[in-house]
């Protein structure tokens, strides 16, 4: 495909990604889909929250999980950045700390897909049994 260089090019190929947008606009019913908030204050940004957020939003879509990924402010866990808050439909939110790309992958595969908790929950009161 030609490189997208201008708004006109963007318009031309827009049909190919309209579906993705339509999917997200369902977020008027945010209670039915997975919500992920990435803490993106100074502490988060400095620790790599931008990469974590980019990974989460692209991977969740690639893996066919209906989710909305947004950024939020500092949750006060600056020592454990990047932190993310995951809310599965109908459940209480869970906060994970030190979420690099590897951890994010584990959270998608285990917690988001199957509901199985993984290590790294904040406040630290949970540990998996080997």
């Amino acid at each position, binding site marked *: 495909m030609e490189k997208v260089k201008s708004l006109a090019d963007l318009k031309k190929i827009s049909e190919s990604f309209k579906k993705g947008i339509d999917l997200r606009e369902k977020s008027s019913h945010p209670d039915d889909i997975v919500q992920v908030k990435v803490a993106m204050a*100074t*502490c988060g940004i400095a620790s790599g929250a931008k990469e974590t957020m980019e990974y989460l*939003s692209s991977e969740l879509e*690639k893996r066919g999980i209906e989710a909305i990924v*947004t*950024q939020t402010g500092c949750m006060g866990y600056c020592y454990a950045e990047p932190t993310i808050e995951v809310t599965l439909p109908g459940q209480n939110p869970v906060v994970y700390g030190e979420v690099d790309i590897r951890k994010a992958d584990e959270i998608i595969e285990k917690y988001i897909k199957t509901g199985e908790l993984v290590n790294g929950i904040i406040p630290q009161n949970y540990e998996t049994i080997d």
Partner: protein
Amino acid sequence: MKELALHILDICNNSVDAGASWIEITIDEATKPDHIIIAIGDNGKGMDSEMSSRVEDPWFTTRTTRKQGLGIPLIKQQAITSGGSFRIESEPGEGTTVLASFLKESVDRQPMGDLAGVLLILSGTSKEIRVVMNYLTETGSWRFDTDEIKSVLETEQITGNGLTVALREMIEYNVGELNPEAY
């Protein structure tokens, strides 16, 4: 923080917190030779002169989750150590503009980094916030405007992998044309 783009993201998040519906980022490599001037303006709630002077203090913050506020001090430090300057202009009820200049050739000047990624995160932050970026160099200028993108695509939201990939390509191409070192 290792990239100028990350500082831009951080400062723009202050604008979001200040209730801005419009954020304009200007990256100017044309006006002052050998300098990169980054200006981030918003129409948020603004600050009085007392608060404007206190935000440069790392121990000042309006939030309650922690006692430090490092966003402004960090960008200021980067600007000053690279031989540039830093200034905040703000008016209560009008908005705030943060101005930082960097000496291009200084060894302490951080690279621009992933500007496209930062613009995309900001564009997806809220439907209600218009994000504009002007990139100016001696050879020309380029403007990114979420309102233009939304009207061309007849959509309210900038989201989804397909659109993100296409927009990244557009930003990197246009910024790269102006400054090949940026991309």
